[in-house]
């Protein structure tokens, strides 16, 4: 039961973060593409901007990994 809870916790940690990141990057990406269509020189900044929300899923991954280690 304890193992099951840890496993679900790990899955939720990374899954929910990924959902949030995906939603944010979707919004940023579509706005960014519109900006690039009008001004191609901003492409580099837009790509970096799209990468910024990845912090959430990366930290979620780290937390999930640490939870999995507890399972082991």
């Amino acid at each position, binding site marked *: 039961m304890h193992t099951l809870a840890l496993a679900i916790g790990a899955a939720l940690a990374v899954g929910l973060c990924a959902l949030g990141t995906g939603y944010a990057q979707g919004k940023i990406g579509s706005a960014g593409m519109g900006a690039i269509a009008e001004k191609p020189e901003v492409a580099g900044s837009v*790509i*970096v901007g799209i990468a910024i929300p990845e912090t959430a899923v990366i930290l979620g991954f780290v937390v999930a990994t640490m939870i999995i280690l507890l399972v082991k």
Partner: protein
Amino acid sequence: MSKIKLFVLKEDISCAIGILHDAGLLHVEQIHLSKIMEQRGVLRVVLSPEEEKERLNYETLLKELNELISLLPKSLPVEGIEFMQRLKENSSGELSNIVSGELKPKFRSFTKEIASLKEELKSLPQYKQVLESFQVLKRELKPKQDYACLALIFDKSYEKDMQIFKRHMEDKTKASLELYTAALDSKKIVSLLFYPPQIFRQIDEEIFKKGTKKLELPRNLLSQPLNEAIKYIESRLKEIPQAVEVLNRAIDKFIKENLSLIYTLKTTALNRLEEIQVRANFLESKYTAVISGWLPTKDLKRLNQDLEKSLGENFIIYDRTRFVNKRDIPVLLENPLALKPYELLLRLLSPPRYGTMDATSLLSLFFPLFFGLIVGDIGYGLIFLVTSLCLKKSPKFFIRSIGSILFAVSLSTIFFGFLYGELLGNLGKDYLKLPHILFNRHESIIPFLILAVSVGVFHIVLGFLLGIIESWRKRHKKEVMEKISILAGLAGLFLLVASIMKILPSGFLPPSIVLLVVVTILLIFLRGFLGPLEIISAVANILSYTRIMALGLAGVMMANIANHIGGLSENIFIGVILASLLHALNLILSVFSPTIQSLRLHYVEFFSKFYEPGGKKYNPFRKMEVRECILLH
């Protein structure tokens, strides 16, 4: 940098612009025209009607040249193309005549002929199919003279409709039409409709309404017997590709002979247009013109000498450097050749303010390090190395720079690959018995996490130290105190956590608490009640470096999965192909993700401690070279 105001006589302004353009030193700045200046008769330089006409001529010339250049192949030989000195003194009209009189008509005739031949090549097989349908029936076509022919292709079920159509058109147009029908294939019928050319529009409208596929057969095919017409088509099908090949060779020859001319014209037009447009930045009074700008202080003497040679004593340079705001000074990044490629990575931010730190050297050190820490695979590193050596041969500076960065990154990746003992994932360990000198990333997650956080601590502390140095140089004591307080706060937090977790003796606990209290009070005093949050922000910045572990782990897991899936297949070749495809996908991800995340760590976490963006790039008013113009293509 020195800010200067150059005063010249109005009649010498064109000469002065030419000298400044040749020297390529002055970053021209628009002079602000105040009301007092206007009251004293100082105005912004306005183009005369002749200059306006010249400007329009050059813009039209550039448009025509760009049209011509768009027809050239994308990859052009850069070597051997030179600026044609004989065109240096030609006027805009003469240059336009060269383009519209010589170059464009000749090039257009080539491309038009090729287009026509390709169109014929596309149509001939269809004509052949139609004529062969009638040849099978052993019917010769004997249309009336001067009649045009349309081949109509439609479904077999509509065969009877064609006769109705013919009668309908004859009634409508009062003309006599001829109709021949044959089977094209098992499902389609072709009808040849011969008609007087003057009723083409009416027939076309009716056919368009019915949505039938049509083909206009050339008269010369129908005026001869069917088998001769078919033989003629077959011989044309063989001749046309050869004719196209001859024309392509002629175009290549024409381009090679005229490439220098085309790019000389473009470079000349661009430079002259720039010389006209720059005047809008100047001011003039009744007798003088004023030009303002920036140049490196060491080049001021040289500019003086260049102006003296042509203008004698008829100019004055006022050095206005001591009256400027440092924020307005344009910035020229001067880095050694080996570090120049990394300036590309900094282009995503604005240049640093004048007098502040240039982060290019730091980026050149830490970016490959982070990339290597994340990817850390000998196999991938070798692929990057080979790719970088190919890219470094490109004539384009941008591609060569990417190659140089990739070269450094590949060496770092190979180095860390040895430390991790990874070659295409776990293949190094399984087949070559590579040792894990540092640790096995797949199994040692906590040590990898500790390494990533340690790198973060080092990088952030370095950022703060550089920030302290920058603030000290600018005599911003408050900023120095703030940064020292945050560093002390981080140290206190570390001591507190280490004492609680018994990594350090419990004797460190009281001093760490005292340190944190002192730092908190100091930060509240320096930055207000939200000041202590800066310590938490710094901790968050450090934790952000855990992405090194996350991405590295994801990468090595992908590589191991690729090997595992490849190993599942019983056939070795299929297994290798499957594994290669997954490794290729991982390789592509290994280029983009570590690049973006490494840059993000620099831009957001590291640079925020000391880098001051907001500088203006030094962009001197200089002549474009022919080579630059070609590389822009």
